[in-house]
């Protein structure tokens, strides 16, 4: 079973979000998308649709005015996408 590698798990406290879109706009990897889901306060909330693209720059975390985001860095274990030597991980880091 193929598993997509990722550097982070993105946690959002949706109930505290006020839908300002800073995370959507500020992310250099375009991880977030605005959804049509409304929270209890009546704001539309974002979703990290491309969580696997997150490079843990934490711009969203530090810019979020509601302190509603936490980027949890996780150890990546590269599972083979396709059997290709160039995509193998060496010593915990991707080379090539």
């Amino acid at each position, binding site marked *: 079973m193929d598993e997509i590698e990722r550097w982070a798990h993105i*946690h959002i*406290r949706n109930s505290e979000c*006020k839908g300002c879109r*800073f995370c959507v*706009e500020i992310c250099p990897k375009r991880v977030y998308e605005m959804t049509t889901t409304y929270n209890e306060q009546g704001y539309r909330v974002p979703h990290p649709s491309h969580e696997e693209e997150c490079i843990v720059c934490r711009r969203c975390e*530090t*810019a979020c005015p509601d302190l509603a985001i936490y980027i949890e860095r996780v150890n990546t274990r590269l599972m083979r996408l396709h059997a290709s030597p160039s995509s193998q991980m060496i010593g915990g880091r991707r080379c090539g």
Partner: protein
Amino acid sequence: MSREKIKFPLDGLLRRDRFPHLWCQGCGLGIILGAFCRAVQEADIDLDRLVVISGIGCAARLPGYLNCDSFHATHGRAIPLASGAKIANPDLKVVVIGGDGDLFAIGGNHFLHAARRNIEISVICSNNLNYGMTGGQQGPTTPLQALTKTTPFGNWEEPLNLVELAAAAGAAYVARWTVTHTQRLTRSLKKGLEKEGFAFIEVVSPCPAIYGEMNEQGSAWQMWEELEVVSRIQDSILPSEASFDLHERIICGEFIDRERVGYTLRLRQNRNMARQEVLAGYG
């Protein structure tokens, strides 16, 4: 993936039971709150020693969200209250947080003298160019020609340069940032916390719901982008030349970082003098 149950890194510094906070969508104060918490962590401040004091306004609500001793005082009077606390117990780490009106209009005189005394507190000013909490009236930093509830035809008063005033009054550490400088702001707040003297950090902060709305600044994000575009970092500049033109150029950076004898030290010296007089038989 939304995992709401996990503990966030800043949770220990916050009164999480009071969230979501009361500030508007896109308000810079939440960013300042986060930066301050990170600065406290980086400076390894003991939360039992930390006291955060404020006056009145949106910025003044910030201490209520921190997990430490906090005091929400009268409008403009946070600085003298903080001075009293610091003098009475110099072991406390005392911080004042306020807005541009609270600290520089009604509180201006107290700011001036606390800086003059070099009392060992940090003063963080969230400058959003108006009185937000009360609906958007003119303040001492409102730009010329800006629209506010009390300048409906455009502001006819010139604003104050806060960093120039702080430097002139004698502050030991003076810096200006915008909320877009999240990392530098954290570092600067940390420096302010570690300074044994009067530290002043101005943080230019968007007020999208009120100032922004009155002056057609667009969305919160658009106000953020504008601040990013117009701010320039120039550390080695005279505070008087650290200009502030909202749509042209906002000079940011650390302008003053000097050594001055701290006020509580001077009070200790005074005590020593007094006791010598006692021994000499006077008084």
